[in-house]
C-alpha cells in the first residue's frame, strides 16, 4: 500500500478495472480473429477496422436482450451466480503489480488472495448450475466443482516453489526477486503445472468439460441469456487475462524488460499468454471426465510435489544458516 501513497487509490482501482475490462474485451476479439486464422476463415472483420468494434456491437446487442429468468429456476441464486464469477476474477487483479509502484493492494499474502479468489469463483459456476434447475446445467456444474477442487490443489502447490525462491507471498516481492533470472527457468516444472491448472481454472479447452458444448449443450450456463450470460462470457476472458497476468508476474519477470516502459512489457507478455490460451483452444480435443480427474491427481499433483520438494531442498542448501 505504501507505494501507492502519492497515487489516489480510487483512480488506481478504476484504471485497473477499466484496463482489465478493455483487455478482456479485446481478447474476445483477439480470440475470434486468431481462431479464424487457425481455421481458414476470416473471423469478425466487418464492424469497425479489422472488426475491432464487433465486441462493442455484441455488447449493445446483449444489453438489448430481455432480462429473462426461466420460470423453473431459483431466481435469487440464478441472478447472483454470474456476478460471482466476474467479481472474483476482477478482485484478483488488485494484487497484480502492473508496473513498479502500480498495484492496487500490495498484500504480503497477495498470492494467497489470488488463490482464494479463484477458489471462490467455483461458487458462481456451481450455483448457476444448481439454480438453473436443469439437468444439463446441473451436470455441468457438478463437473465444474469436481474439476476445480482437484485442480486447485496442485495449482497452489505448483506456486510454492516460486514463493520459496522469493521468500514472500507478495507479488511485488516475487517480481523483484526475478531481477537476475526469470522464474520460468528454475521453476520450469512449476510453470508447466501452473499453466495446466490455469487452463482448468478458466475452464478453457481442453478443460472445458463444465460447458462441453457437444455433450452438455452449454453446461452450467445453458439456461442463461442476455446480460447474465454476458457476465459468464466476459468472466471467462477476465479469467484468461488474469491467469496470463499471473503467469507473467510469477514466471516471466512481471513488468521487467529492456527499452519499453514497464507497463508496456507487462501488457505485451500478458497478451502473448492470452494468445497461447487461444492457440491451445484451437488445437486440442477434450478429454473425458474421469481421464481429466486422474490426470490431475495422478500426474499433475505428484509433479507439483516433486517441484516443491526439489525447490525447497535447493533453497535450503544454498541459503545457508540464518
Amino acid at each position: 500500500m505504501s507505494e501507492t501513497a502519492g497515487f489516489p487509490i480510487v483512480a488506481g482501482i478504476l484504471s485497473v478495472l477499466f484496463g482489465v475490462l478493455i483487455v478482456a474485451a479485446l481478447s474476445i476479439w483477439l480470440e475470434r480473429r486468431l481462431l479464424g486464422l487457425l481455421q481458414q476463415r476470416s473471423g469478425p472483420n466487418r464492424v469497425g477496422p479489422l472488426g475491432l468494434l464487433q465486441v462493442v456491437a455484441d455488447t449493445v446487442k446483449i444489453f438489448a436482450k430481455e432480462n429473462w429468468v426461466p420460470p423453473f429456476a431459483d431466481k435469487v441464486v440464478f441472478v447472483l451466480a454470474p456476478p460471482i464469477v466476474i467479481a472474483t476474477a476482477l478482485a484478483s487483479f488488485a494484487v497484480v503489480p502492473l508496473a513498479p509502484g502500480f498495484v492496487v493492494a500490495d498484500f504480503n499474502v497477495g498470492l494467497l488472495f489470488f488463490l482464494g479468489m479463484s477458489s471462490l469463483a467455483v461458487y458462481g459456476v456451481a450455483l448457476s448450475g444448481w439454480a438453473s434447475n436443469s439437468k444439463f446445467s446441473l451436470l455441468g456444474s457438478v463437473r465444474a466443482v469436481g474439476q476445480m477442487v482437484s485442480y486447485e490443489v496442485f495449482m497452489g502447490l505448483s506456486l510454492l516453489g516460486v514463493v520459496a525462491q522469493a521468500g514472500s507471498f507478495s507479488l511485488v516481492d516475487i517480481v523483484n526477486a526475478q531481477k537476475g533470472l526469470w522464474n520460468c527457468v528454475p521453476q520450469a516444472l512449476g510453470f508447466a503445472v501452473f499453466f495446466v491448472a490455469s487452463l482448468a481454472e478458466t475452464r478453457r479447452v481442453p478443460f472445458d468439460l463444465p460447458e462441453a458444448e457437444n455433450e452438455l449443450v452449454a453446461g452450467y450456463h445453458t439456461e442463461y441469456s442476455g446480460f447474465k450470460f454476458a457476465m459468464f462470457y466476459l468472466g471467462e476472458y477476465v479469467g484468461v487475462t488474469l491467469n496470463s497476468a499471473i503467469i507473467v508476474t510469477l514466471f516471466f519477470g512481471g513488468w521487467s524488460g529492456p527499452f519499453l516502459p514497464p507497463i508496456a512489457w507487462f501488457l505485451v507478455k500478458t497478451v502473448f499468454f492470452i494468445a497461447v490460451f487461444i492457440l491451445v483452444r484451437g488445437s486440442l480435443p477434450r478429454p473425458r471426465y474421469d481421464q481429466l480427474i486422474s490426470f490431475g491427481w495422478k500426474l499433475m499433483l505428484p509433479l507439483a510435489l516433486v517441484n516443491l520438494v526439489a525447490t525447497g531442498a535447493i533453497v535450503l542448501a544454498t541459503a545457508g544458516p540464518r
Partner: protein
Amino acid sequence: MERDAILRELAETFGAERIHAQETADGLPTAWVEPGLLLDLLSYLKTARSGAYPMLYDLTAIDERERSHREGQPPSDFTMVYQLLSFERNEDLRIKVALEGQAPSVPSATCLWPSADFYEREVWDMFGIAFEGRPALRRILMPPWWEGHPLRKEHPARATDMGRFGMSEDEQAAMLEELKFDPVKWQVDGPGPEAGAGTFYINIGPQHPSAHGVLRLVAKLEGEVVVDLYPDIGYHHRGAEKMGERQSWHTYIPYTDRIDYLAGSMNELPYLLAVEKLAGIEVPERALVIRVMMAELFRIISHLVFYGTFSQDVGQMSPVFYMFNDRERAFDIVEAVTGGRMHPGWFRIGGVAMDLPRGWDEMVLAFVKHMRGTLKDYDAAIMRSSLFKARTVGVGALSLGEAVEWGATGPFLRACGLDWDLRKKRPYGGYERFDFDVPTATGGDSYDRLAIHVEEMRQSLRIIEQCVAGMPAGPYKADHPLAVPPPKDRTMRDIETLIDHFLAVSWGPNLPPGEACATVEAAKGQNSYYLVSDGGGMSYRTRIRTPSFAHIQMAPMMARGLTISDLVVILGSVDYVLADVDR
C-alpha cells in the same frame, strides 16, 4: 454357388409345395412361404451349417391390393418382404409372405434378429401389419397421434387430398404432452429397483449439438453413466417412399439425393441401377465411369463431413473448418460438372444428364493432389493425437457377430474385421474395372470406424484418378426408348415420333411390370432401392433400405455402461444422417 440353389435346398428341406419361387427382374432368389412356416424357415436360414444367411438385411412390406400385374404370385393383400444376406454365398435371398385381410398379422422375427425391432415398428407404422410375439408395437416414424398407415394405398399422398391441416392450442398442448417421455408408454423401463437414487432421465435432442440432426435420444443416467438409451426417430421423416409412388420414374431422381443428403449423387446410383434392371437398359461405358467418378467424389464429400464433425464431437474445434473447406473444393468440381452442389440430381435413367465440361480432368486431378496432402495433415492433427485416441480407442467397440446380427454394413462392418465391400464382392455399375483396396480393422471401436473412413477416402482418390486416366469416349446416355425421348428434329416429320416424344417428355417412360432391387456400397453402408413396377409411369412401391436406419438402432447397445461423453463419441463415429434414418 449356382443361382437358385438355395431355392432348391429350401424346397427339399421344407417340401416343394410350401416354397413358391418367383422370378424377378433383379434375379434375386425369391421364395413365397406361408406365415406359419416363416419363423422355421428364417431360423433354418440363419443357423444353417453351411451357406447361412446371418444378416437380416431388410424387412418391409408391399400393399398389393391395387396391383394388377401379379402373374405367378400367390394371392395377397399385403406382402411381407424379408431380405437376408449371406456373406458365405455372396448372395441375398428374398422371402415373401402373403397376408390377407385388412388388419393382417405375422409372427415377429425379433426372436431371431434383435434388429427386426425397428423394421417391424416401421412396417406397423406404415402398413398397419401387426407382429405377434414381441413387445407391443409403437409408431416409429409418424407421430403417436397419426391416423392411418401412410404407405397403404388408401392413404392420401398429397396434402391437398387431406383437407386443411390445423391445430388448436389445446390440441398442440395435447400432442406435445404425448411426445413427452414416459417409461410406461415407451415400454422401455426395465425392472425398477435397480435404478438407484441418482438415476434420472435426460432428453438428448431433437435439438442438441451432437445429435447431428433431429435425433432424439432419451438417456437413463446414473450420474454421468448411461444406464440405458432409447432412440426416438422420425423427426426428419418426409415420406420419401410414399413420394416414390406419385413421382414418375424420372422425376423421382432428385428425391433420392436428399435421402443421405451428404452423399448427393451417390444416392441416385442404386435407384437408377434398379430402374435400369427393370427396364433392361444397358448403360454406355462412358456414363458408367462418369457415374463412378461422381459417386466416389461424393463418398469423399460425405466422409469429410463425418471426419470433421467426429473430431468436433471429441472436442476439437478446428478440423471441421478444414474439412468443410476441402468439401467446398469438391463441390466446385460437382458444380462445374453438374451445375448443382449438394443435390445435383444429375444421373439419368441410362446414363447421366450431360457430358463432362471442358477442363474437368484438370480440376479433378488438382483436387486429388490437394486431398492427398491435406489427408496427411489430418492424420497428424487427429488420427495420431494421443488425446483423441484416449477418447476413441475401445469406445463403442462391437464384435463382428454383433455387427452382423444388427445389420451393420459399410465402414461399420469393416471396422469389425469383415472384408465386405460390395464394390469388390458384387461389382455394380462398372466398379469391376477399378483397382482399389478395401481397408479393414479389427477393433470395431470408434477409432477404427474413423480409420476405415480415412483410408476409404484415399482409395476413392485412387478410383477417381483411374477414372480420369481411363475415361472412355462415346455417348453419355443409353440410346434406349425408355431412357431418352426420340430425337427432337424427327418429331417434326412424323406424328408417331411426335406423340412418343410428347409422352416421354411429359409423362415419362412406362417401365415394364416387375420387381428389382439394387444395392450399392454407399458412403455410410449398403443402400438399396427395391422397386416394384406395375407397368406404369410411376413406381408401385419404392422401398429404400438405408444404412443409417440400421446403425442408429445399435446406439443403445454400444453406449450402455459408458458415460455421456462416450455416447457423443459413439454417435459421432456411427456416421449417420437423420434424413437417411427417417427417409
